[in-house]
């Protein structure tokens, strides 16, 4: 089996990131002694103790389809306009109305894109985020055929000149993108590593996007912090095309008038 590139962050990032990330939100909530199990609790995370297991929750009741998340993502990663790593779809519902559905990468626990890569250029990091090593990717686009959500983007053109020419692209912060390779949303791990919130979340004026952690069972949209499992349960959260067995790490809270079976 191929040896994977070094994908760990700072030596002991857990505590620092935990504090940093949730310090940006309002007062934390009491977590201890509630006795509610998280909806999904990966065994890997349990074995590793306090490691993060990132999830995203998108509240479709709040999303107004403005596309600020997409723009912020493109600015953050210096992407051209047709690279919508988080893409906002307008979905018509049965009553003739419509709702908006932002689609980042779902960071699937059983990721179809990951298995089909011939050179193991795409991998899941210890915190459940699917990354791409663009130094290794050969550009066969098999992962794009395999992804059921169309979350992967191929760099057909030479990316624009980087704003930070001295930055060396990494799987965590692949900026600038490399022509002839595949890129995608990676939950802004370069920002969460520094205790910051993902760019799309920060840009969302409706506070519809939450970043959360399955291990601590907590999530925040930058303004309020919620108990993740209860938030998902109380709001009948669902995962998109869950029946494919991909185990997406992105939860949706249904928009108004939307069927719960997505």
């Amino acid at each position, binding site marked *: 089996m191929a040896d994977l590139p070094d994908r760990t962050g700072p030596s002991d990032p857990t505590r620092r990131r935990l504090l940093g990330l949730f310090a940006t939100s309002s007062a934390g909530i009491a977590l201890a002694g509630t006795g509610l199990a998280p909806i999904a609790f990966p065994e890997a995370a349990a074995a590793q103790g306090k490691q993060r297991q990132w999830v995203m929750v998108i509240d479709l009741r709040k999303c107004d389809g403005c596309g600020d998340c997409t723009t912020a993502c493109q600015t953050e990663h210096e992407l051209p306009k047709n690279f919508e790593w988080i893409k906002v779809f307008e979905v018509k519902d049965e009553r003739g109305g419509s709702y908006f559905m932002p689609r980042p990468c779902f960071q699937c626990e059983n990721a179809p894109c990951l298995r089909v890569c011939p050179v193991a250029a795409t991998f899941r990091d210890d915190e459940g985020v699917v990354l791409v090593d663009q130094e290794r990717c050969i550009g066969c686009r098999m992962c794009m055929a395999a992804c059921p959500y169309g979350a992967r983007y191929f760099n057909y053109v030479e990316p624009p000149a980087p704003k930070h020419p001295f930055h060396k692209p990494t799987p965590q912060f692949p900026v600038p993108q490399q022509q002839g390779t595949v890129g995608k949303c990676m939950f802004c791990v370069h920002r969460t590593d520094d205790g910051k919130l993902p760019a799309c979340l920060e840009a969302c004026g409706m506070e519809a996007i939450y970043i959360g952690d399955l291990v601590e069972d907590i999530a925040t949209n930058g303004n309020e912090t919620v108990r993740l499992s209860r938030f998902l349960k109380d709001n009948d959260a669902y995962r998109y095309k869950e029946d*494919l067995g991909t185990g997406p790490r992105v939860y949706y809270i249904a928009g108004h008038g939307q069927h719960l079976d997505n």
Partner: protein
Amino acid sequence: MDAPTRALYVERALWPIGRGDLRFWLAIGLLSALVAFGIYAYVYQLQRGLWVTGLNQRVSWGFYIINCVFFIGISYGGAMTSAILRLTNARWRAPLTRLAEATAVAALLVGAVFPIIDLGRPDRFLNVLLYAQVGSPIVWDVVAISTYLVASLVFLYLPMIPDLAIARDALGARAKLLGKVYSALSLGWTGTPSQERALQRGIGIMAILIIPLAVSVHSVLAWLFAVTTRGPWHSTIFAPLFVLAAVLSGVAAVILVIAALRRVYGLQPFITARHFRYLSYLLVALGMAYLYFMISEYLTEGYVLEQSTAPVLESIFLGQYAPAFWTFAVGGLVLPLFLAGLPGRFPIARACMAAILVIAGMWLKRFLIVVPGMAGPIMPWEWGRYSPTWVEIAITVGAAAAIPLMLIVFFRFFPVMSVHEMDEVEGVHAAPPRMAPAFAGGD
């Protein structure tokens, strides 16, 4: 048996070697120009990147993947025809095997290049070996295609050894350098019984081996699609469907190649209407099997009409891809069955017509697998679009031209017919018992 006949087929088998009349050079010139333009288009793409193609974020596989499946498919037909006819000891095969095996190698060389043409970073192709992740269908492809390429080269070479000795003896004096090549390649063949035995055993083993190898390669190509979650691709019948499509298009290609080259090389006394009739029957049998598989696929999918499959099936049967589909189904599959299958006059012309329709139809069918499967809405609200650019078309045309070019060049240096097998069929010298199955029968 009778000396004049043997003299004739020895003469005809060696006739193209070193021959170069105006027609030959015209053909070489025209085909080379097409290939050269294809290479120019690829260099153009290499310098700029894949944006010069019609591929995009939604439809990220197109002509190149279609061509890969198509040309490798054609190659199986050549190899399988030759292998099956050998194993069943069909005596009428003798004048055909060389042509079929050479077609197999030429088409395979062309098809095997397409996955590399399709890569975003062809400079990193070796990563597939360095970091091979065995769970990836792309790795299966690389392993299967390269194994099959080696096998089909051996399968072309082994039966040619005695012929190379004949060429060495007949032409060695005329062409010094070529004589040396024949000498080296014929491995000191003199036709002793022990040499005969070794050769027959080798050919027998290769004929048996090449069939599962060919099946494996096209199955693996099918799994490239079938292991994804896309509704129209995620089908258990895909592998056998692809294998059948490959052999079907390959037999059609063999018909076309022998029809063209028998005129060019004066092989009409040996390759007769009878050969076209037999190959037509083979084509009809395969075509009917393919029709059955395809109905089985579309019926099971169309009856349930899952959300992920329904829009694509609708577009194929009634929507934007319907003209292509019905052209294929009627013109490229059903019509050829009647053309090739019904008795009557002009068997050669009808076989050729059927073969052309089948080949065009099978290319269209691959298009209908790849493009609607890609463009179909996976987030169920948006369709992708794809129209190829001149780069993709030029590379496709160049690749198609490369096959006859390679064949013409090859037969300028190597015997076009297997003299040794003709000898065997004509009983010129007593060949030792073949390593053939007990049920072997001739015609």
